[in-house]
């Protein structure tokens, strides 16, 4: 059912085909004839599959996948025999688990692949796309359930409760087992990074008021709940109520109502995640780095010689790594390579795949002053930068082809102008210590010693500018 069918990719189609094959076991093989015509692709798929299965960690995922297919088939037959819509809606959550296992496989495959010529950014996006596809597919399934339920309200068929409770518990047990025992990196990341679903919000609200009564529960209830566990439990709860009401009072309509409730909960849980991964796919700047990026870009625009920062476009490639491109307009007499090095140095802490284009107006016209200043003769004030010129407004989330967005806000100018000189220097040198450590976080632990070593080698210099508490980066260029 997932079947993202990207047949023509040179060496990437294979994951997708794996996806297809896994799902085909219950899709009844719609595409068998189709695949027979592409022996080579099948061969490639087997090759890639062997690559993945050579890792021991993926065996567990495969095992769970097989179990999941069996369980889903079992549940689907029970859905048929009980004629219960609610159980069908719950079974779709099991199918979603299958998708998430496939996503997990893809992510382990992605970690093994190097960027190719065609996929120059690497294969991280496959992970995102598969998360997006699985959440959207589950939502479409929920939409289908809603439609069926509306039709059922017209004429409620009888629901047999024989296998209903058994099916519920089997599905619940299996879902929880899969969720808790398989470490599903992409989905864990998305569920933590995406905004909370309404189900989570309500549970948090309830548990907050519950903790007001019983404070002992706060360590268990107050942290953010895992949305998948939550929806599984809530769905099982709804099914339990359905079973009870049908058994006691023969209210068959409860089944339809709880199917709708489960479908709505599925929507609520999956929607924030598909929005998050969809935003990654749309190449938007993730909101949590906008502030940091803004600060860096403002710093960049205060560098000596920089007039304007424009066409900036930053986005995440996969879940995490930021890529970006930016155009920097500089003064005609500024040294391009120097500015480039400084801009790259600033932004590199945050943006790993960076391209900076330096742009000069009227570059063909000969300069009035001497063309390039020797590196050593830069005065201190060169590094303070033009204080009147400001950084761009926060990069908008969608930032291609949006000229005019960078018109600077007037309000901020006062703060910039009042900035004392020594502060400007502190700004300049900060990338060495603060920015790096802050920007890269734990992953950068290894490189800190070398930075230290470098700094100590120049430690004699800073005292030359007595008023300046931090070593000016200028010192490091002195021959």
């Amino acid at each position: 059912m997932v079947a993202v069918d990207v047949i023509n990719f040179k060496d990437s189609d294979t994951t997708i085909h794996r996806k297809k094959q896994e799902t085909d076991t219950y899709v009844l093989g719609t595409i068998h004839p189709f695949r027979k015509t592409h022996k080579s692709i099948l061969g490639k798929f087997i090759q890639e599959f062997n690559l993945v299965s050579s890792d021991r960690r993926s065996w567990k995922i495969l095992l769970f996948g097989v179990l999941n297919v069996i369980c889903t088939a079992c549940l689907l037959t029970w859905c048929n025999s009980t004629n219960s819509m609610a159980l069908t809606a719950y079974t779709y959550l099991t199918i979603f688990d299958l998708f998430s296992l496939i996503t997990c496989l893809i992510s382990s495959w992605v970690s093994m692949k190097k960027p190719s010529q065609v996929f120059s950014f690497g294969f991280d996006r496959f992970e995102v796309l598969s998360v997006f596809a699985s959440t959207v597919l589950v939502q479409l399934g929920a939409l289908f359930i809603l439609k069926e339920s509306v039709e059922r309200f017209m004429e409620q068929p009888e629901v047999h409760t024989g296998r209903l409770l058994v099916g519920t518990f089997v599905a619940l047990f299996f879902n929880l087992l899969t969720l808790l025992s398989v470490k599903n990196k992409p989905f864990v990341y998305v569920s933590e990074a995406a905004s909370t679903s309404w189900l989570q919000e309500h549970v948090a609200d309830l548990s907050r008021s519950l903790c007001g009564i019983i404070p002992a529960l706060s360590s268990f209830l107050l942290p953010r709940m895992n949305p998948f566990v939550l929806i599984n439990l809530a769905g099982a709860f709804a099914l339990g109520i359905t079973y009870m009401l049908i058994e006691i009072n023969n209210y068959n309509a409860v089944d339809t109502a709880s199917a709708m409730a489960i479908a709505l909960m599925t929507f609520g849980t999956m929607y924030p995640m598909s929005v998050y991964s969809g935003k990654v796919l749309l190449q938007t700047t993730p909101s949590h780095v906008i502030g940091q990026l803004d600060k860096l870009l403002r710093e960049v625009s205060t560098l000596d010689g920089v007039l304007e920062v424009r066409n900036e476009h930053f986005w995440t490639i996969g879940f995490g790594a930021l890529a970006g491109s930016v155009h920097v307009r500089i003064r005609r007499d500024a040294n391009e390579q120097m500015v480039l090095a400084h801009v790259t140095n600033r932004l590199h802490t945050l943006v790993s795949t960076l391209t900076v284009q330096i742009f000069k107006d009227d570059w063909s016209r000969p300069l009035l002053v001497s063309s390039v200043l020797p590196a050593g003769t830069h005065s201190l004030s060169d590094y303070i930068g033009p204080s009147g010129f400001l950084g761009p407004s926060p990069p908008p989330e969608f930032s291609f082809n949006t000229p005019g967005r960078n018109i600077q806000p007037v309000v901020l100018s006062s703060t910039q102008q009042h900035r004392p000189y020594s502060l400007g220097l502190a700004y300049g040198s900060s990338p060495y210590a603060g920015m790096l450590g802050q920007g890269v976080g734990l992953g950068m632990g290894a490189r800190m010693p070398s930075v230290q070593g470098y700094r100590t080698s120049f430690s004699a210099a800073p005292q030359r500018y007595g008023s300046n508490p931090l070593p000016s980066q200028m010192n490091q260029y002195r021959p």
Partner: protein
Amino acid sequence: MDDKYSSNVISGGKLGRVEVPNARLTRYIVLLLLTKLLKALGIFESYDLLKVVHVVQFLFILKLGCAVILLFFQKPFSSGKMVAKRQWIRILKHAVISSVISLLGFFGLTLCGPLRTLLLFEHSDLVVISLLSVLFTNSGGGPSKTRGAAFFIIAVVCLLLFDNDDLMAKMAEHPEGHHDSALTHALYTGISFLGVADHKGGVVLLVLALCLKVAFHTHSRKLSVEIGGAKRLYALSNLVSSVVLLPWVIVLSSTTESKVESWSSLALPFALIVFSVMVLDFYVESICTAKLEALRCARYGSACLFLSGLLLANFWTHPLTDQLRAMSKSGQQASTEHVLSGGVLVSACFFVMADSILSSPSEKGQKGTLVGYSPEGMPLYNLMGDALQHSSQSLPRFIKDSLKQILEEYDSRQIFYFLCLNLAFTFVELFYGVWTNSLGLISDGFHMLFDCSALVLGLFAALMTRWKWLDGFLILSGFINGLFLMVIAFFVFVESVSRLIDPPNINTVMLAPVSVGGLLVNLVGICAFSHAHSHGASKGSCSSHEHGHSHHGHSHSHGHGHSHSPGGRSMNANMRGVFLHVLADTMGSVGVIISTVLISQFGWLIADPICSLFIATLIFLSVIPLLKDACEVLLLRTPPEQEKDLNFALEKVQKIEGVLSYRDPHFWRHSASVIAGTIHLQIMSDVVEQRVIQQVTAVLKDAGVNNLTVQVEKEAYFQHMSGLSTGFHEVLAMTQQMESMKYYKDGTCIM
């Protein structure tokens, strides 16, 4: 003692409502509870009375009695300022509307019984207003209010669906003699026209009356201030409405024969009802609202009312209460009592919870946006922004604006017109289905509605592009539409396989005209959309579609098949999705027509599943190219149709004078019209960078890249980098290290 004075107002939480200690309020609460109990009793009594007395007469007596008592207490004529003529007219309007609402309420009482009326009708205005604000505005007040609203709705739905009161069903047959007057008859016919049972009609009626009541109360607040107090207005309004009702009552009592044997025996119950329902409740409520808070008053009042209603419903038929009841003597009437059922119990619980949640004060304050920090380090919030934003965009204006935007663009206009056509067809089908009571038609109508959601998505995407300059969303929406079609194909497939095993008997009478109609509608759509495509840069959709399902064997070499239309293919990923949807629907209609013919002519029941199997496969195959293209864009693949040109261009770049080498060439399609690219160049130190940039940009523009970023590096750059940091190669090494680290400490890299 000390901290009482030391802490400032905000951090101590002293700012806000001043809570009155509970002990002083206990007597008011007890008074309120007693009044509510009496009111519940009065409503049960009035249900019994309404079995013999006509609604209008009943209401007239209530209003008159109430007016007399209030005139005595309130003295509206002798005290206060004179009532102007203009105000009399407004009081008249007030009286008419209030008597209409009470008529609806008491009519609902006759239909639903006292308990259900209590549950549905006796909600405080505050509860209903906060319910409506949750439902229709964004600023509901947190998840707890949303939960309360959900409980309320669940409770009403419970009453509607799960309250299978068989005694109601008996009443629903309503023998013709039951209707006493034209009014009740009109209401009955209105309800039966809706196609619901009487008691469900009563539920709907009561909910409507509740909303009316709240709107009326809110509206009449201004009038009550003008008149000089709510009590004076109440007294005057009751008087006027009894005057208004008088002629009607006279006509009624002269034309119809009364069922009442002796009015004198009814005097006591009437007095009780007038006292408990009309007068005491009004006074106590106004006192408690003044002394307690309004929210608390509402909470206690409604909870008590519901509980006492449940209690009374349990004991009403009990011999103990017989002496309380006015009409205990008629034995046969006891059988038509509205009994307690599970549904009512559940919904009563839900109502109690909903009321207590909705009438609890919202803990959260206003939602402000963080503006910055004060010099002391305290956060500063802006509370105005949201409120202003909410008021600036009203709903009709929003609809009007988006409609205008839709109609401006060609693509979205096409989708919109087709959506309207489709919806019209769907509703005709649905109405006809309800009319003829044909389940097949209704379910087909819902299926069409389900299909329309794809069109809505396409329309939304077309609109989004204009709102947020979101070109990429078109591709994403094309992808979602493709997935949607996949799901549909999958379900059709599964359905047809299960039918293949066990072919059901199909009634073909209704199917043929509907499917012909659907075919016509979809043909119009196909014409419109294929026209749209010929208007666009290419006929991407048509050709790709044929490509998809006629000779799919060649699809691996399709890069050539489409090379004549660069840019056009992905340009309309959205439109392609919509087009494929329409195409799938058309194929469905054709399949249904063929199978209908086969079944009716030859009796081949198996034709239907085979047809749908075929259709599912066709849909599936036609979606593949769309999905593949959308995936390529979303995965940031180098555009396949530009691949050759790009390789050629890169070779050319390397031959530019002064260029040593290049690295990290990335080219991808950012949106329909933008192919973005980034490249790093290493050049000799004596070359002017800007010239190289110009040349490279020109070369790559020829290859189709229209948004390029070139980073030109000289040797000096690497020297600077090594000066600025620990060396460029070490930076590179560290970046790689970072990437490998990313897999162990996920998320920490960026944050």
